[in-house]
């Protein structure tokens, strides 16, 4: 019940295309959903985050779509660029409980081809 399931495991997109990464959760206590981006040799870095009181959040080329009833959320990268090539992790926190431990998805390795 604590898991966050992420797909696909890897993704190849052409430059300028849309990258879509999906996550699903079961624990209804989760109420804060960040996405992290990790480049080789670096630690994960916060990219964008959403709370379930909104269905979409956009920051530049990155958009999170959230479906509370389906307990699913996804990251869309518009106009994907080679510099976006990285591993992306969705995560979740049960904010209302006061806990801070991030529960991560399994990660998606994105490769944007020039």
């Amino acid at each position: 019940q604590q898991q966050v399931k992420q797909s696909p495991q890897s993704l190849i997109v052409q430059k300028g295309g849309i990258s879509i990464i999906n996550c699903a959760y079961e624990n209804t206590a989760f109420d804060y959903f960040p996405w992290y981006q990790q480049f080789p040799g670096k630690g994960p870095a916060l990219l964008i985050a959403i709370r379930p009181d909104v269905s979409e959040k956009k920051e530049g080329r990155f958009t999170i779509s959230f479906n509370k009833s389906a307990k699913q959320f996804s990251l869309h990268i518009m106009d994907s660029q080679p510099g976006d090539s990285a591993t992306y992790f969705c995560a979740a926190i049960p904010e209302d409980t006061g806990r801070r431990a991030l529960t991560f998805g399994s990660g998606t390795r994105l490769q944007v081809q020039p």
Partner: protein
Amino acid sequence: EPEVTQTPSHQVTQMGQEVILRCVPISNHLYFYWYRQILGQKVEFLVSFYNNEISEKSEIFDDQFSVERPDGSNFTLKIRSTKLEDSAMYFCASSDGAGTTDTQYFGPGTRLTVL
């Protein structure tokens, strides 16, 4: 831009030996964390630390693990008697404590190899 640093970048040890992984969190941050990532698997939470005590820990964080803030800048993870399955990338993170969902900033990690 302030960042979390970790040393060493790679540690090789023999099974049964003790290892200490070191982290320097961002200077004004109040919460400190350790996560690990076994090769090819997801990042997993180990422990969080606040006000000189453990605030939260996972089932992975058993008696073989301990954390300490020995001075005003360092945060350490000790594994008392390493096992083969402890081989992983260990990430330290810190956050400013402004709220439960304050951003956790991750270091570059220490790759631990247990032989």
